[in-house]
């Protein structure tokens, strides 16, 4: 038979696990998380950007109605093929863009209605990569509310 002491330990464990899950549902540190993005760099014209790999992700606040992501890639050799860049928001396909030259392309993502979280995840996938696993340069993201 379960003793009262053992039962209280189980209860404590369950309460602790529930509290941890509640916290991890929408933790404040999530907004700062990125994956597959290299450190910030600055182009000669002063544009700030980060190189992605084949797959990168970052978070934006969930009150955003629209997000503008400037992207570009290199075409330094004739072998550098055009690049398809696919955006998804919280794992739902958002926009697909074809890059055929080295100029910056602002990609506008219309955000679907948000749920209960503070932030939303944006994934960027490229169809090919350049030398050294470089995907696209991602500039400062503009959030429109």
């Amino acid at each position: 038979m379960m003793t009262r002491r053992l039962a209280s330990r189980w209860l404590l464990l369950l309460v602790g696990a529930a509290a941890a899950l509640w916290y991890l549902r929408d933790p404040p540190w999530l907004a700062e998380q990125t994956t597959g993005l290299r450190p910030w760099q600055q182009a000669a014209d002063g544009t700030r950007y980060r190189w992605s790999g084949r797959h990168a992700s970052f978070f934006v606040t969930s009150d955003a109605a629209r997000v503008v992501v400037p992207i570009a890639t290199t075409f330094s050799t004739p072998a550098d093929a055009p690049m398809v860049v696919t955006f998804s928001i919280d794992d739902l396909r958002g926009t697909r863009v074809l890059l055929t030259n080295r100029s910056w392309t602002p990609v506008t993502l219309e955000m679907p209605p948000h749920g209960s979280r503070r932030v939303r995840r944006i994934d960027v996938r490229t169809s090919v990569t350049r030398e050294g696993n470089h995907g696209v340069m991602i500039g400062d993201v503009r959030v429109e509310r």
Partner: protein
Amino acid sequence: MRVWLGRHFIALAAVVCLAGYVYAYREGIAGTPIRSDAFSYYVYLPSFILHHDLTLQSVADDCCGGEFPTWTGFTRWPRTHRWVDVHPIGEAVLISPFFLVAHLLTRWTNLTPDGYTPYYQHAAGLAGLCYVLFGLWCLRGLLRRHVSAGVTDAALATLLFGTSLFHYATFDSTWSHAFSFALIGLLLDLADRWTPERGAVAIGIISGLIVLVRHTNVIVPVAVVGTLAACSRSRGFRLNADGLRLAITAALVAAIVILPQLFLYESATHRWFVNSYGGDRFTFTSPHVAAVLVSVRRGVFFWAPVLVFGVAGLFMTPASLRRWVPAAVAIIVLDIYLIASWVEWQFGASYGHRGFVDVYPVFAIGLASFYQEIAPRPVTRRAVGALVVALCALSMFQMLQYWHGRLPMIDVTWDQYVSMFGSR
């Protein structure tokens, strides 16, 4: 107090190891858990479970632009152009329950479910830590049947703090050694408890997993199961029918456990048996025996001198443990020869010689026997106790120097070693 410490030994070890783990990762001195060798041990999980891809190509695409970097040790098999991982799948199998929890949590938090975001990283890191604790728990069960509780705890505490075991439970917990340590500890415990009525299948499964984590560790189940086949408790060394039945059953079960690895080799190379390192990497005619034993570069007894007691103790074992001595000696001697014959005999970056962490459970038997032998002699006991405490303190100090980059990861020289004691 002593009784309380003994009763909570594993819990205390868990708290200390967890504190070491948190320190290593909060301070940012360890990078991320899935790094270096750990990457290739772990890669099967994101590839198989998240990408449903047995070829590993999806992970190569996702992480690395289609080609794994050279440091990962992956090779493209010339004829098939498929990836062959230098490391087998065993560690990934053992991490998989932790990985599944991490995946569910990742979905719950809405982190990127790519296999490498923080929950996955620390699930793998904490898996290694948990397996070391499990290994200690198994060894505790084994030793308690033969020596006193105090001696058991002293031996295990010595192993944890006087060798590189603590390092491989915390800072480098995703390397294969934590997992091999646990499996070998469990195998020894199971074998010691084995009766003809039960245990053969479990011994076979664990034996198979040992080989799946690190192929060269096959020497351990062969020696352990061989001991059970070749000697009985009551009649000494003599082939016995029950033992032979065990050996056959365990070998068959182990073969089934190993089959997925062989299938992977076959699908990638069209060969069932593959040297994943490629080429002839053993130098059996010119082993670096002295270097792996006592050199400042990587000598196992130089970096963990308490293990000398573990070897000495193998010749003072209590009668009930004596049947394991030939197997223990054979495992240690063969392991020394294999490690010393490996072309990269330092095993790359490592604190102490990491090649021996796998067989620390064998040293634990010797350590416990040594302590049991000196226990009735108060003067010797106190002298050895003081020496062991000092050696454990030295080991922990050296380990922290390694963590903070004050010791090189490889090719340590005597001058570098001595200068460590003057550095802040």
